């Protein structure tokens, strides 16, 4: 009996997931995967032999990667944890990449060719400080030494095995070390820094054993500010605390001397305080006053002289020694649409080694960083290439006056994604270049036919595969029947919008938003939301859809907002404006005006609602629905959830008819000593629900799903338990989940999980919510499901009532009616911890749902919702089984074939977005993190379309052959009949 039971289970499981996995030749047909690294922080070129073709980079997204210098591809890449910020990278011994990370406490060496980790050592120190990593050429017992200053301590570490050879503490308490310098060819290092903001401290330390050779200090009453520039191995340039006086600090042979030069002596019309651009170029440094960059030379006698004042935006790279005593550095200046790359010798301003002008895409913004590298040309002279990092986080390699390659690394930091339909196919739109001619079409079908009849040679098979992958169908710029082709519009952290084609993932257009551009008025703009603004259905042929981008000037919620409107087809900014109010919440309303612009409410920090678009028509529509508009806010820091209705006027002084006040209708006050909000989830606004009724076949009954768009799922934990898993005992931690109606503030359901802890990831769809948390008692992750059913509709089951019309099916549903809901819930163990969770969504909501789980391994796993059915029981009856109820198990199965990312990883996975295609069976899945992944996914197989390898030609031929056969037999039978009659 157990055997049959197990067999049955196996049968059910195997029949559940028949086509989630795919065949080898199907990879890449509907899916694409793109790898990114994020904004580059530091780049180190490798100069030895085979490594010449590579550059090692560290990024702001904590990635260490080596890139191919010829094509810009990733050789290898390591994504460190989100709190493991990379402080510095160097190349040691020509084969190791040494990285310092995690605030200077972890030092790792990676093998340069393949990225394997060679060793790791942790460095500890007495206090938190700036972290510096310096490669030295000191050799201790055949070990090359790398010197690290971190956590207030100086360490010397062997490059071979990561052993700490010596370390040294500094007795001055307030020492802020700025630089660690090793003069070339010497066996000691200088450690220089400021103490108590007005003392300059210099330590000379023997690099062999850490012995203190000399300690000098000098006081400067004006204090120091900001960064320092190194102009020789024994001279620094710094600024005083006012930013008006330049200080040249020389510590030659242990004697510290400070020489002051007011900036006004050098530059006549200097305005305001200056900022030093940190660099280490011999005899040269740069300061920035407002937007003007000034290059100043330090002569041997200590005189300062201005060599150039650049009014354009300028980026300066670090020095590169090209030959003995000669240093070169790179400089990029903007001039209109072009950028000028100049490589100069440090000691000779006039002599340019290289001067190139490159046409630059305006949508990349300003150059933020320059890294130069030299190589030997075929004619024996020096050539230079430059790696530049742009404002939109993209990375470009410039060589010989051209852009060799570019990487759109802005896509590694997507904030928000929306989709847009493509233009309707019509005569005016040229699609000719992707259209096939008849001959090719026929050839293709012949090949396919051959493949089907198994007559194809290996070359033919390769050709078929290539044809399928490069099918022009999927990358056309027009709408298709199935709704597979769409534009994914993504807003990135750099304030750039990208439109990606779902067919092949190429960038259709990109736009650096002017409204999210750093300016005088808006110092730290950040993008917040991306909403579809105008989706023309009636005017789909002559109007383009547009999106609304909402941003804010600064991290605090009361900073003024910015909005802009962007055309989804052309990528042009239609208009943009800075708002007088702040933006705390963006609420798309379910109303559109006559031009099909969606009405939006922007809630500011003072709880005023601002209506957009600001047209009289919009206000007319809004006034009609005024009393039916409610909104809510979750103050998760003090545990209060509040609901509001709108007042007809703003209570501010300015008369603004598009501004509405709010009145508090309800509030839920969670006790601060026992509950802390950690997650809130709502249903997707545009989700389609096919039917409200759910048949319970087992008892011949109907249940009505409680489908309200105004439900909010809230999860709270004990404040103590909001930390890491395992920081509290099961007795003092609990998880409470709420289902709240956001119109009336009714708590429809509240349930406590004792001994459980966050983090909570949840997804809400139709009438159910699934959430994931950690169970401390069972030492396992759990997933729970809550399904909500409406009892007040239960009377409608009587058929006679329906016939006579005594039902309440057509009456409008009001939130103020007391709803009798029943909930069913069940919990299951789950092996993985989650990064994200989503649910498939289809056009009509008929197809059964699957949960898409972003696992800790950065993959996306599909899990049938039927596994999370609260009605599962140990022994389902025959009727229940027919209905598809799976026998109860204590944990959810992870079926290896149901990873929809198959063998790929979406590194740093942050979000999963599902978009319905027009074809009911299929949903489009887009997962983003550092990488991007897109695929089509059919939760219940593609029951409504022919498979990809369906051969039309074979069908045609079969029909033709049949018809021919009919004719032949007809003629034959005629003839026979005639003969019979003559007989």
């Amino acid at each position, binding site marked *: *009996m*157990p055997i049959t*039971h197990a067999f049955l289970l196996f049968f059910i499981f195997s029949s559940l997931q028949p086509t989630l996995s795919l065949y080898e030749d199907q990879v890449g047909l509907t899916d694409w995967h793109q790898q990114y690294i994020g904004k580059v922080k530091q780049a180190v070129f490798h100069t030895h032999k085979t490594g010449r073709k590579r550059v090692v980079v560290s990024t702001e997204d904590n990635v260490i990667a080596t890139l191919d210098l010829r094509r810009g591809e990733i050789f290898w890449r390591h994504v460190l944890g989100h709190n493991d910020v990379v402080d510095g990278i160097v190349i040691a011994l020509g084969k190791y990449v040494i990285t310092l990370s995690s605030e200077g406490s972890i030092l790792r060496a990676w093998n340069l060719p393949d990225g394997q980790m060679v060793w790791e050592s942790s460095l500890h120190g007495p206090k938190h400080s700036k972290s510096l990593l310096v490669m030295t050429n000191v050799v201790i017992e055949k070990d090359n030494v790398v010197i690290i200053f971190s956590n207030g301590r100086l360490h010397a570490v062997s490059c071979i095995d990561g052993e700490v050879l010596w370390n040294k503490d500094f007795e001055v308490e307030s020492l802020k070390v700025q630089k660690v310098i090793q003069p070339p060819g010497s066996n000691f290092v200088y450690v220089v820094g400021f103490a108590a903001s007005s003392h300059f401290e210099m330590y000379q330390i023997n690099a062999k054993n850490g012995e203190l050779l000399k300690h000098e200090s000098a006081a400067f009453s004006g204090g120091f500010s900001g960064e320092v520039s190194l102009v020789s191995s024994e001279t620094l340039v710094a600024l005083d605390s006012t930013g008006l006086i330049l200080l040249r600090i020389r510590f030659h042979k242990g004697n510290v001397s400070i020489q002051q030069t007011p900036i006004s002596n050098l530059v006549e019309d200097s305005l305001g305080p200056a900022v030093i651009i940190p660099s280490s170029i011999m005899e040269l440094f740069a300061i920035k006053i407002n937007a003007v960059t000034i290059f100043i030379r330090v002569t041997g006698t200590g005189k300062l002289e201005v060599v150039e004042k650049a009014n354009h935006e300028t980026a300066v790279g670090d020095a590169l020694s090209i030959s003995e005593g000669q240093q070169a550095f790179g400089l990029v200046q903007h001039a209109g649409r072009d950028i000028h790359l100049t490589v100069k010798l440090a000691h000779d301003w006039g002599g340019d080694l290289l001067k190139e002008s490159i046409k630059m895409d305006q949508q990349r913004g300003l150059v933020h960083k320059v890294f130069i590298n030299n190589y030997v040309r075929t004619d024996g002279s020096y050539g230079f290439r430059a790696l530049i990092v742009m404002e939109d986080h993209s990375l470009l390699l410039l060589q010989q006056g051209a852009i060799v390659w570019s990487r759109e690394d802005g896509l590694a930091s997507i904030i928000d994604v929306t989709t847009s339909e493509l233009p309707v196919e019509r005569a005016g739109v040229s699609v000719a270049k992707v259209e096939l001619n008849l001959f090719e079409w026929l050839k293709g079908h012949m090949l396919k036919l051959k493949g089907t009849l198994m007559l194809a040679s290996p070359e033919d098979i390769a050709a078929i595969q290539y044809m399928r992958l490069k099918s022009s169908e999927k990358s056309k710029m027009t709408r298709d*029947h*199935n709704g597979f082709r769409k534009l994914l519009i993504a807003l990135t952290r750099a304030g750039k919008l990208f439109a990606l084609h779902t067919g092949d993932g190429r960038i259709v257009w990109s736009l650096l938003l002017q409204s999210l551009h750093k300016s005088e008025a808006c110092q730290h703009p950040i993008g917040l939301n991306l909403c579809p603004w105008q989706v023309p259905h009636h005017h789909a042929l002559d109007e383009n859809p547009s999106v609304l981008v909402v941003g804010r000037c600064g991290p605090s919620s009361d900073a003024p907002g910015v909005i802009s409107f962007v055309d989804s087809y052309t990528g042009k900014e239609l208009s943009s404006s800075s708002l007088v109010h702040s933006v705390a919440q963006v609420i798309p309303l379910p109303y559109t005006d006559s031009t099909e612009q969606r009405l939006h409410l922007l809630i500011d920090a003072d709880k005023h609602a601002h209506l957009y678009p600001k047209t009289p028509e919009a206000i007319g529509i809004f006034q009609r629905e005024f*009393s039916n508009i409610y909104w809510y806010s979750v103050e998760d820091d*003090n545990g*209060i959830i509040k609901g509001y*209705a709108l007042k007809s006027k703003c209570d501010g002084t300015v008369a603004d008819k598009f501004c509405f006040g709010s*009145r508090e*209708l*309800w*509030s*839920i*006050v969670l*006790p*601060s000593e*026992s*509950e802390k909000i950690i997650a809130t989830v709502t249903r997707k606004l545009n989700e389609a629900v096919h*039917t409200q009724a759910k*048949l319970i*076949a087992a008892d011949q009954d109907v249940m009505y799903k409680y489908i309200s768009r105004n439900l909010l799922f809230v999860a709270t934990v004990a404040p103590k338990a909001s930390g890491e898993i395992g920081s509290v005992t099961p007795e003092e931690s609990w998880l409470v989940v709420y289902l709240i109606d956001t119109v*009336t*503030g*009714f*708590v429809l359901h*509240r*349930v*406590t999980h*004792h001994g459980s802890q966050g983090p909570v990831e949840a997804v809400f769809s139709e009438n159910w919510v699934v959430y994931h948390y950690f*169970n401390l008692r*069972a030492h396992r992750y*759990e997933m729970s499901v809550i399904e909500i059913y409406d009892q*007040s509709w239960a009377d409608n089951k009587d058929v006679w009532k329906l016939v006579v019309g005594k039902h309440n099916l057509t*009456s*409008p549903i*009001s939130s*103020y*009616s*007391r709803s009798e809901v029943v909930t069913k*819930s069940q*919990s299951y163990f789950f092996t993985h911890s989650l990064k994200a969770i989503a649910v498939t969504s289809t056009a009509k909501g*008929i197809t059964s749902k699957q949960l898409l789980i972003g696992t800790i391994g950065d993959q996306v796993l599909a899990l049938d919702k039927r596994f999370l059915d609260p009605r599962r029981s*140990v*022994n389902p*009856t*025959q009727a229940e089984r*027919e*209905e*598809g109820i799976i026998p*109860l198990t*204590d944990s959810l199965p992870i079926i290896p074939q149901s990873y929809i990312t198959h063998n790929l990883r979406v590194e740093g996975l942050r979000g999963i977005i599902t978009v319905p295609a027009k*074809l*009911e069976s299929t949903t489009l899945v887009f997962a983003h993190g550092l990488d991007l992944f897109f695929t089509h996914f059919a939760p*219940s197989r593609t029951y*409504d*379309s*022919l498979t990809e390898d*369906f051969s*039309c030609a074979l069908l045609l031929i079969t029909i033709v052959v049949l018809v021919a056969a009919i004719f032949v037999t007809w003629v034959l039978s005629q003839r026979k009949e005639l003969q019979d009659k003559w007989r």
Partner: protein
Amino acid sequence: MKSVKVIVSFVFTLSLLSFPSSGFQSDELLVDDEEFGLEGSPQPRSPEPILTRSPPVTAPTRKRHSDLDSDSKIQFSLEHAFGDSDFSPAGTFSARLKTWSHGGQTLTKLRFSRNSFTDEDKEKFKNLLESDDFYRIRIPSNVLSPPGRDFVISSVKARCLPREGLDEHFVIHMEGVNVLAVNYGSPGCCPYPRNLKFPAKWSFSSHTVLKNSEQAPRAPVFSEEILGGENAEGEVVQPPERSFWAKYWMYLIPLGLIVMNAITQAMNMPEEQASGQGQLYLVWPRPLNTEINLCIKILELEYFVGSRISEVKL
């Protein structure tokens, strides 16, 4: 019975406390007076408008019996507001505070006494009804030290309340002594569009429910033995024996058809010697499990006929 005694003693002490100083019947507004008149018939309130008071003044004081530490009485007030007006006292909740041995405290035996509307309140409420505005109530978020961190507010469209009288329904969600939320509304449905209807009599019939958090069901933990054991005992419910027709209909129908066909042919045979062609009947026995399946089938057909064929460019 004990509670009644307690109340009586309260009223008594109150009268002792408040009256000895002045021998005459004062016309001073005594709000607290009503709070302790629990079961007493609603007294008409003094006509003076009740101005906003700071919460500590209106907040009721907690009374506790020193000898009954584990089971003490507690009161907290309900306040209401008409539209955007300020909150004013509207009634009192009284309950027993039960202290459990493990330190937790819960409220039990919640009772509610509503102050009846004054004429002015009635007027305000009528205005609310006419403008379809909100009637708002609030209670303190902590019943031991009101108002706690904040008041818990709830509101309802005033037109939802009138039936015969004024029907209201409170669901108070508690966590220990903290009030998390109060769901306030009419006990039944409140169909939209809401019609203007004035109550026949201005008295409230109130229902109060106290709700504490539920425990979540535990994840089912079972091992192979239990599963096997159950099977060994043969607890699996055998599906009920189906009728002969239910079992074999898929064979019977074609058989019937064939028989009928044969009979017709046999009947036709004597008349015409011509070759009567045998009719072919196709029968698909398709198990239609669920509604979804049915829809899928329909869709399948639709798409086959419609979009798909044009898509594959036949």
